[in-house]
C-alpha cells in the first residue's frame, strides 16, 4: 500500500518565508542598528545619553596626572557632544564622529578616584559598571591600577581604554581582549633612549638603578638594562624602592660609593620628583666618577613631573609619549583647545586620555553599536592620524598602539614655566617596534571578547 507523504509547509508558506529572509538579509544597516539591543551589558538602548566612566587618580602619588586626565576627558566629552572648538576632532583622520554625540546619544560621564591603588581603582570601576551603567571605563596613571581595572572590565564585559600605563605587562602578559592602550611602553622607552644615551655618554658607563617596586618599575628596569647593556654599559646595582616612599635618602646614599657613574631613576610622578630632587641635593650631579661627570637618566618623563622637580631636570634625558610643543596640526589643535579652557598646556597623560576617549567614541560610531565585541573589531588593526603622534596603529595582536616615540631633555634655559622639556629626537616607529611574542611581552593571551551577558 502506497503512503502519501505530506508536509506542513505549503508552497505559499515557503515563498513567504523566503521573501522575509531575503528582505532581512539585504536590509540596510540602519534597520539592524538596534539588533544588538539587550545583548550586552549596560546597553543604553533608546536612552538619550550614554555614560563613560573616568577612573583617575585624584589622590596619591600620581594625583597630578589624574587631575590633568580628568580635564582632558571633560574636554573630549565637550568636543564629542559638539561643544567648544572641536579640538582634535578637526584633525583626526579618518573620523566618523560628527559632533552630535555618539550614535545620536549625548555623552555623559561619571568620575572615580583610583587613589593610585589597585583595590580602590577596581572598587571605583565596579561602581561605575554596576551602578552607573557605563559602557566604557578609562583613565589611570599606574600600570598596577591599569592591569587590575583592565582585568575587571574584561570579566564584567565593558571596554577599558587605558590611561597612562607604561608597563610592558599591560599589553604583554596581562593583555585582555576588552582592553586597549594608546600610551607607549617601557620597551619602547628603552629602545628609543639607547642610541641617544650612547651618542651623548658613550659606551663605557656603569649604571645604578633605583626602581619603583611594582609592575611598571620592574619592566622599565628590565627594558633599560637590556637597552643600555646593548650599547656596552654595565649595571652596577638594581634597587627596588616602595611606591610613595617620600624620603629616598637611604636609597641614594649607597649610590655615592657604588662606583656607578650613572643613576637611572625608574620612578614616576611624585616619587620621581622626590628621588630626583634628593639625588641632586646629595650632590650626585656635581660628582665625577670613573673620570666622567655623574649623570642621571629618567626613562619616563612628563612635563608635570619636570615642573615639580624644577631646575633639577635640566640636561636630564628621558622619553615621553607626547609633548605640547609639537608642531603638527593635531597637537596644536589640542593644546589650543586645552589651553583656552584651563590656562595651561596639557600633559602627556591628558593627551593620551583625550585621544582614547575620541578613539572609543569613533569606534562605536563606526560599529553602529556600543556592544564591546563590535567595538573591539573596529579598534583592532585600526590605523589613524592627526592625533599628535603621526600615523598610528592599534595592533590587533596585543591592542598596543604603535607610533613614533619622543626622546626629551630637561631644558637648560626655559622660556616659560611650561617650557621645561625639549624634544631632542623623534624616534621612528620602526625602531621601537617589536614582535607580539617578544620575550618581554610573552605569556599573555587576549582571550575572547566579553559582552557581559
Amino acid at each position, binding site marked *: 500500500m502506497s503512503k502519501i507523504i505530506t508536509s506542513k509547509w505549503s508552497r505559499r508558506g515557503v515563498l513567504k518565508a523566503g521573501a522575509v529572509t531575503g528582505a532581512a538579509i539585504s536590509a540596510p544597516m540602519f534597520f539592524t542598528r538596534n539588533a544588538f539591543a539587550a545583548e550586552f551589558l549596560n546597553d543604553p538602548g533608546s536612552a538619550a545619553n550614554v555614560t563613560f566612566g573616568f577612573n583617575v587618580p*585624584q*589622590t*596619591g602619588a600620581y*594625583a*597630578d596626572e589624574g*587631575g590633568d586626565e580628568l580635564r582632558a576627558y571633560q574636554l573630549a566629552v565637550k568636543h564629542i557632544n559638539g561643544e567648544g572648538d572641536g579640538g582634535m576632532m578637526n584633525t583626526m583622520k579618518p573620523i566618523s564622529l560628527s559632533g552630535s554625540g555618539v550614535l545620536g546619544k549625548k555623552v555623559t560621564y561619571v568620575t572615580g578616584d583610583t587613589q593610585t591603588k589597585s583595590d580602590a581603582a577596581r572598587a571605583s570601576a565596579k561602581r561605575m559598571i554596576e551602578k552607573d551603567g557605563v559602557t566604557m571605563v578609562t583613565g589611570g596613571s599606574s600600570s598596577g591600577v591599569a592591569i587590575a581595572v583592565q582585568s575587571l572590565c574584561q570579566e564584567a564585559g565593558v571596554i577599558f581604554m587605558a590611561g597612562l600605563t607604561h608597563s610592558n605587562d599591560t599589553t604583554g602578559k596581562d593583555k585582555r581582549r576588552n582592553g586597549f592602550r594608546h600610551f607607549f611602553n617601557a620597551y619602547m622607552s628603552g629602545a628609543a633612549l639607547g642610541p641617544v644615551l650612547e651618542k651623548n655618554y658613550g659606551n663605557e658607563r656603569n649604571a645604578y638603578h633605583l626602581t619603583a617596586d611594582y609592575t611598571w618599575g620592574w619592566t622599565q628596569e628590565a627594558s633599560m638594562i637590556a637597552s643600555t647593556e646593548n650599547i656596552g654599559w654595565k649595571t652596577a*646595582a638594581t*634597587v627596588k624602592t*616602595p611606591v610613595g616612599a*617620600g*624620603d629616598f*635618602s*637611604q*636609597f641614594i*646614599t*649607597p649610590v*655615592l*660609593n*657604588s662606583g656607578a657613574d650613572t643613576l637611572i631613576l625608574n620612578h614616576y610622578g*611624585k616619587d620621581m*620628583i*622626590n628621588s630626583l*630632587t*634628593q639625588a641632586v*641635593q*646629595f*650632590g650626585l650631579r*656635581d*660628582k665625577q666618577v670613573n673620570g666622567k661627570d655623574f649623570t642621571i637618566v629618567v626613562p619616563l618623563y612628563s612635563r608635570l613631573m619636570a615642573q*615639580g622637580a*624644577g631646575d633639577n631636570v635640566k640636561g636630564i634625558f628621558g622619553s615621553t609619549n607626547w609633548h*605640547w610643543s609639537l608642531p603638527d596640526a593635531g597637537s*596644536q589643535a589640542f*593644546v*589650543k583647545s*586645552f*589651553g*583656552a579652557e584651563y*590656562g*595651561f*598646556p596639557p600633559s602627556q597623560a591628558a593627551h593620551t586620555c583625550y585621544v582614547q576617549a575620541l578613539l572609543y567614541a569613533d569606534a562605536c560610531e563606526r560599529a553602529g553599536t556600543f556592544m564591546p565585541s563590535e567595538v573591539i573589531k573596529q579598534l583592532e588593526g585600526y590605523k589613524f592620524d592627526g592625533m599628535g603622534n603621526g600615523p598610528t596603529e592599534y595592533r590587533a595582536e596585543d591592542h598596543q598602539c604603535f607610533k613614533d616615540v619622543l626622546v626629551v631633555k630637561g631644558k637648560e634655559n626655559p*622660556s*616659560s*614655566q*611650561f*617650557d621645561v622639556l625639549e624634544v631632542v629626537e623623534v624616534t621612528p616607529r620602526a625602531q621601537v617596534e617589536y614582535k607580539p611574542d617578544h620575550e618581554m611581552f610573552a605569556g599573555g593571551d587576549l582571550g575572547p571578547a566579553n559582552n557581559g551577558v
Partner: protein
Amino acid sequence: MDAIFLQVLNGLDKGGAYALIALGLTLVFGTLGVVNFAHGALFMLGAFCAVSVQSILTISQKVRDESITFFEAYKEIPYLEIWWGETGSIIIDYAVPISIVVAIPVMLLIGLAMERGLIRHFYKRTHAEQILVTFGLAIVVQEIIKANFGANPIPVPAPDIVSGSANIGTWLGMSDTIVYPWWRLIYFVFSLTVIAAVFAFLQLTTFGMVVRAGMRNREMVGLLGIDIQRKFTIVFGLGAVVAGVAGAMYTPMLPPDYHMGMDFLVLSFVVVVVGGMGSLGGAVAAGFLLGLLQSFAAMNEIKSLIPGIDQIIIYLVAVIIILVRPRGLFGREGVMED
C-alpha cells in the same frame, strides 16, 4: 667605611625627625595620659604653616606670558619682587626659616584649642575611646587641608644658600665622595637643639619640675594646691609646637601633602612604643636607634642577605620589644605591662 659613615649620617638625620615627632607624642601621653592619634596631624599642620607662609610671600601679579602663542597664558610675578626687587627675592627664598617663627605661636594656639575644645573631655575615658576621637580629629584636619590646599604635594625649597650639599669627607680628612645635603645636616642640629630645649625646660624650670612631679603623681601635686591640669594644658600646647616646627623644617626634604601626618603617625607610635610610653629619653633614644637601623637596613649588602629588610626593620624591632619588654626600652615599670 665611607658607605658606613654615610649611612650613619643618614640614620642620624632620620632619627632626628623620628625623635622630634615622638617627643611631643610621649610628652602628652606622659602628662595627660592621652593616646593622641592626632599628633601626626599636628606635624602636618606645621608643614602647612611653611606652605602658607610661602604662599603669602609669593602673592603675585599675573602678567601675560608672551612666549606661549597657542593660547592665552599668564606668568606670576610676586609683589615682593615687584616692590623690593632683590630684597623681595631674598625674603621669599627664606620662607622656611620665616615659617618656623610663625609656626610657634600658631601651633601653640592650635594645641591649646585642641586640648580645651576636645581632648580634655576624654581624660577619664578609656584609651580606645581616646584613640577613636583623636583619629577622627586627624581625619577631619587632613580633609580640611585637602579641601584648601589640594591633594598634591607642594614643593617648599630650602634657602638657596643651603640647597646644595656639604663636603663632609674633605672636612674630616676622609674620602671626598662623602657629601651630605646641607639642609639635612641643619635638620639634625635643629632636632638636637629642640630636644635639648624641651629637656632643659622640664629639668631646669619650676614649671618643668611641677610637670615632672605631676607625671609621677598627679593627685599629690593637686593636694599641694597646684593647678596641675592647667600646666598639663600648656604641655599639650608645647607638644603641638614641637610637632609643628618639626613639620615646618621637614618641608624642603619632603614636599608636604595632606596625608603626610598619617605617614608619620605610624612611625612615631612605633618609636614611642620602642622607647617606652611616656618616657622622653626613651622617645629620643628610640628615634635615633630606629633611624640608624632603617638606614643600615637599606644598604645593598644587608638587603642581599635579607631581602626587604629595610621595609620591615622598625616594625620587627617593635614586635620584639613588645614581646620581650612591653614597657619599652626606657618605660616605667608597670606601664603597658598590666
